[in-house]
């Protein structure tokens, strides 16, 4: 445990020190060149706004965060379920996979505008659906690959043990797909947050971080920046939780902390 803490410290102090230095330089530069607050506010004034308007910022973070989280979970469930369906039915696989990949290349987030017409204006559902769709593709493509790309030797061995189709899924395909799922989650989690922000420009209530940033950057730049920092914190939180989950799973499966592959 002590060694882990030491390693964590060793890994964290350089970026922390660097970030601190950057903020100092920023503060100094604004003062030195006498930049106007509407051009670039100082970090200290941003910190002031965070303190002043903390309840508002927290509420906005909560709205965007919940949209991202609900969408992420729903998209993960949907992606996993469809990946299993694709595994069982080869025909479906040939129909759906190219479509999934093609759709992934389209900026589908703009569909929020269309979805918003189907729901009451205060509904959070369209934005959550949007996050879900984006996450769903990432999860589907990766988990389907994990379920499919099982070592041929494993399949032959299981057949030699007279394993039925369900035993093959349980003993080989699912365990093989687990790391793929968590890698996909690591990719999807920050994407979910970004999608939640962007979706706010295309409809729904005007209560999330994305909307607040555009509004306040025009009126009170320091407050706008306060929301930018909230957005960064939210994105980082999602990312850190997902990489923690991934490394936890890999450690449980006996891979080294560096994620060595056999």
């Amino acid at each position, binding site marked *: 445990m002590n060694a882990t803490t030491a390693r964590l410290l060793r890994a964290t102090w350089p970026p922390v020190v660097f970030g601190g230095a950057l903020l100092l330089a920023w503060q100094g530069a604004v003062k030195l060149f006498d930049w106007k607050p509407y051009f670039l506010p100082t970090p200290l004034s941003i910190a002031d706004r965070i303190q002043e308007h903390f309840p508002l910022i927290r509420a906005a973070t909560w709205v965007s965060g919940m949209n991202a989280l609900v969408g992420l979970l729903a998209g993960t469930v949907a992606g996993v379920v469809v990946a299993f369906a694709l595994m069982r039915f080869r025909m479906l696989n040939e129909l759906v996979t190219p479509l999934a990949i093609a759709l992934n290349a389209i900026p589908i987030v703009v569909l929020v505008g269309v979805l918003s017409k189907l729901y009451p204006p205060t509904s959070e559902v369209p934005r959550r659906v949007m996050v879900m769709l984006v996450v769903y593709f990432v999860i589907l493509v990766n988990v389907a690959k994990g379920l499919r790309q099982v070592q041929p030797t494993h399949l*032959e061995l299981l057949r030699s043990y007279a394993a039925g189709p369900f035993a093959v899924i349980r*003993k080989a395909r699912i365990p093989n797909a687990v790391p793929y799922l968590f890698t996909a989650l690591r990719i999807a989690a920050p994407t979910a947050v970004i999608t939640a922000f962007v979706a706010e420009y295309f409809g729904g209530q005007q209560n999330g971080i994305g909307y607040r940033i555009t509004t306040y950057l025009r009126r009170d730049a320091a407050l706008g920046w306060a929301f930018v920092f909230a957005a960064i914190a939210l994105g980082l939180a999602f990312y850190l939780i997902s990489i923690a989950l991934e490394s936890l799973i890999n450690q449980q*499966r006996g891979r080294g902390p560096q994620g060595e592959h056999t």
Partner: protein
Amino acid sequence: MTLEAEPAAAPLAASRPAVALTGVSKTFNPGTSRAVHALADITLDVAAGEFVTLIGPSGCGKSTLLRLIANLIEPTAGAVTLGGKSAAHARADQDYGMAFQQAGLFEWRTVVRNVELPLELKGWSRGRRRERAMEMLALVKLEDFSKHHPWQLSGGMQQRVAIARALAAAPALLLMDEPFGALDEMTREHMQSELLRICTDTGTSVLFVTHSIPEAVYLSDRVVVMSPRPGRVTGEVTTDLGEDRGVESREERRFFEKVTEVREMLRGIGGATDDELAIERMRTAGVDDR
């Protein structure tokens, strides 16, 4: 006539060959332009407790033959029986254990849980399977590594785990497809001696596929030589090296004589590396369809 009355008391399986192949042929994609005649009219017996090696140039269908016996693929013609049972029946009963060139360990399972896998599928209780798996690991001298994961072991150790796993369900027959092919020479010789010891201890019959003539001679009671395109049995060499072969056996005159005999039998057969690739592809396709 009167002589036949006596063995009736002995267990049936013991009197029957571990493997009996009668007129077995295999054609992949029959009736199409991509048809490949992998095996033609193979008739071969492996007696109970016998160690038989299949040797031949690339593309002679050695691995295909092994997979037919394992019931991983079906023959186009002919009959395959294991200890008197049909191949399908024998597979359902896990009458054989299998090992490949790749150890094929499940990397998310610890060593001991890898060995337990065939027993899990047989429905053994947790306690019984752990006990048996530890016995098997002791047999391959890896009991200290039971909690390790495969990637923490060397190639030779991984292959020993694979052998322990193949033996876990106490099969009467081991089917081995170049299991030591990826190992260095030193490890390979050590593994050969270990395999012989284990098979003598457990009385397991073995059908072993290899490219290596010295390996075939050292391990086997009988070396079966095959020709390619389509694969046929072209000859046999009985080694008679005796029960307890040691390091010295590899330096005895008799050993070299047998190596020469096998080599001469193989000469003139010729190789076909392209065919091997083609058959390999068909074989994988055949397995995927299931």
